[in-house]
């Protein structure tokens, strides 16, 4: 089965999942006590007619499944509708924040990989030594610190006392050098947890591969230890690291929800939490669906990469 057909089959397989996600999101938001109209009209002595007209505007009085179908119809036309809380369209709200979210997430993911994988390899090769346990403790220190507290500490040390990095995002486009310089702290804070995970995973994967026979054959061929590790062992170990990397997408957004607030970074995480708390359900559904698609695509990419890395796996 060729790659194209495999990707097509997998995409079709994901549709029920996306459907499930949209139903769950819709149901969940409907369960939230209070409606967006209450939010908009709170502490206003609004006349009942006004309340009714606003409810009608958001189809709040129609049966729930009809509301879902109406919403689904809009989504299929990529019209996510208007935000309840502000008069900007949902799509605009998301598009405004997408680059920021991707840059922060990507930067953190990169740091996690560049720190996590090498540490994992060293820990595995030097297994049982002080270096192994030392690197593990350092990596775990990243995962053990509550990220908002770590963020605040970094701001305090590097932003306020050393005045090295601005405390709030500079007024510059997201790819400008000073923005990226600012992003170092949030990306490090966000990436530490994932880095610790990658370290642990790589360590067990490399340890597993080091036991395989082909490593002995490689050494018997007269290859130096570095080539044996980097060329032969690493490629086999990456196979299992890749599958977990995909799950990181949702994990990174978890962290982003907190980190974006601490570093005042305008990302989707912050938008999503505020939308949940403000019952701005068009935004909630749109962002959650977007994240779900991202997670599903990431899993798909991981499987394709997995198959590309390991020839034994046929599509």
């Amino acid at each position, binding site marked *: 089965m060729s790659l194209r057909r495999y990707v097509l089959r997998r995409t079709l397989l994901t549709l029920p999942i996306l459907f499930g996600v949209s139903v769950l999101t819709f149901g969940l938001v409907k369960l939230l006590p*209070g409606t967006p109209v209450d939010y908009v009209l709170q502490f206003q002595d609004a006349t009942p007619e006004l309340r009714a007209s606003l409810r009608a505007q958001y189809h709040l009085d129609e049966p729930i499944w009809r509301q879902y179908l109406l919403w689904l119809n809009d989504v299929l036309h990529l019209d996510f509708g208007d935000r309840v809380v502000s008069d900007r369209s949902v799509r605009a709200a998301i598009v405004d*924040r997408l680059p920021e979210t991707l840059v922060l997430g990507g930067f953190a993911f990169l740091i996690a990989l560049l720190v996590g994988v090498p540490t994992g390899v060293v820990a595995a090769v030097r297994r049982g030594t002080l270096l192994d346990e030392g690197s593990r403790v350092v990596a775990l220190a990243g995962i053990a610190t509550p990220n908002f507290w770590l963020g*605040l500490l970094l701001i305090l040390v590097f932003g306020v006392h050393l005045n090295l990095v*601005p405390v709030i995002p500079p007024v510059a486009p997201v790819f400008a050098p000073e923005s990226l310089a600012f992003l170092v702290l949030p990306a490090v804070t966000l990436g530490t947890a994932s880095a610790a995970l990658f370290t642990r995973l790589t360590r067990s994967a490399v340890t597993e591969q080091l036991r395989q026979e082909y490593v002995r054959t490689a050494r018997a061929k007269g290859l130096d230890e570095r080539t044996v590790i980097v060329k032969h062992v690493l490629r086999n170990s990456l196979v299992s690291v890749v599958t977990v990397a995909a799950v990181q997408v949702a994990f990174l957004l978890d962290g982003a929800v907190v980190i974006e607030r601490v570093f005042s970074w*305008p990302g989707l995480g912050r938008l999503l939490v505020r939308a949940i708390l403000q019952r701005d359900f068009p935004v909630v559904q749109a962002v959650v669906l977007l994240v779900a698609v991202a997670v599903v695509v990431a899993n798909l990419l991981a499987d394709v990469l997995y198959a590309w890395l390991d020839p034994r796996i046929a599509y």
Partner: protein
Amino acid sequence: MPPFTTSRRRLLRWAGATSAVGLAGCAGGSGDGSELVATLGADVSAYDPTQANDTTSRKAFDLVYESLVSVDFEGNVRPTLATAVDQQDDRTWRVSLREGVSFHDGSDLTAADVKATFERYEGTPRESDVFLWYDDATIRDDYTLDVTLSQPYAPFQLSLGGVPIVPEAAATGDLDLSTGPVGTGPYAFDTHEPDRLYRLVRNEDHWYAGDGEVRRTSDSGAGEAGDGVPDSPPIETITFRIIVEQSSQLAALQAGDIDLANNPPADAVADLRQDDAITVSERLAGGFEMLIFPLATPPFSNRDVREGVARLVPRQEIIDAVYGGIGQPAYAPISPLLADYTSESFLQEMGDEHQRYDPERARELLERGFADLDISPPYETTIVTNETGDRVRWSQLVRDELNRTDYFDVSLEQFEWNTYVGRVLAGDSHRSDAMMALGWSGGWDPDTYLRNMFHSEQSTPSCCNAAHYANDEVDRLLDEALTVYDTAERRALYEQAQRRIVADAPVAFVRFGTRIEAFRTESVEGFRTYPLDSGEFTAIYAPWANAYTSTGGG
């Protein structure tokens, strides 16, 4: 943390440096490059006054729009777009507009714009801003119009201060305010990057020409306004950085990334005052924190029990521990800010008679109350609060105080804002088994402190009388006071209403609100704290209030 080589650290420092310069340089065109960096605690969600229901949006476009009249730092009504507002009879007022005023889109201000502004409020979330009093308006000529009220409305002039004038095109649909505010104010809207920043740029042809002829409209004319205010705002660009996290905002202020921080937490004020680069200004505001009793649920249905609880609220301890010693205890709804309608002596009297902290008196009252209802203490109940930091803290202190007596076993329940609002404003809020910790902010008119909270018609869910307090006499007093124009007469009516309310104690008053601002001393000069949160940035440029701010060193 990947190790930084020194060269990389220099890059960071350099990057750090340019960004600071970038901040200081003005994004707009020419001009002296003076910029003030202030902060907003949440993202601006609307530019159109009829849609904006949150204080952040209102304070963000406060400098862009102007209303017919404005209220200065002492509460006096000052002519702004209207040169005069004269009463014809008890239901009609004649408004004469200032000539030569233009909107940011170039169109001239005429009476038609004013009438259109009023009428476009219908069917919008902020409908009540206008339609509580507005009936009709007849345009006499381009610069005069008569406004007829649906009934005599004492706070008419003050209410005019809360209605920003927008171009008529906004009503006809030619201009879409949702893309950006268009008003006549000293600053025009420049850009808004959601969740990041909101920038205003100086409006070069603002109507005020520095000739000091702005006078107070009301007869008691206290001094000439506008003398000494330059003809155009000294600060060219105002950039509002949107920082949700309080601790990040404080860090940014100390690091110098921002010049002005809004509403810093009270207990951080002591630390900020130690930093001599930072000035903290605070002022009594219009509003109060309170604990609402569900009147339909025993034992809170009993007056003695309610007053007993009110007398157990440790107000001074709350002010010291939670608010860093700032603010004063509240024993009645109307804030001392409204000097015309209340006085210290009145407040002390209310305190002594009904609400002041007095554990022995409280024990007697509770003993009698529980006996009347023959409920055996301790009564298990909860205090419900939302996540606002100060409120969470003072409700803990009230809980501890109540639990020290053997009459109550109180636990605390915290809800995020919307779930909380859903509970507090629910139709059966008076039958819930919980006391509700809530804050209320009024305006310049005494009615805003009483009607919504204590008028029987305002019981939840139509508005905010969560206790479902219903007293015919109070209703009558409040309705009458609304139609009487004479201040002295209104004061007497409100005083009588307050006496009745405080005696019935549907709520325990805790503390009058204070507005706190912290700014970097050398980069903010002349800034004064405005008592209402939505008018926070008034002092940046308000010729009608004889106030302006410059960036000092700049």
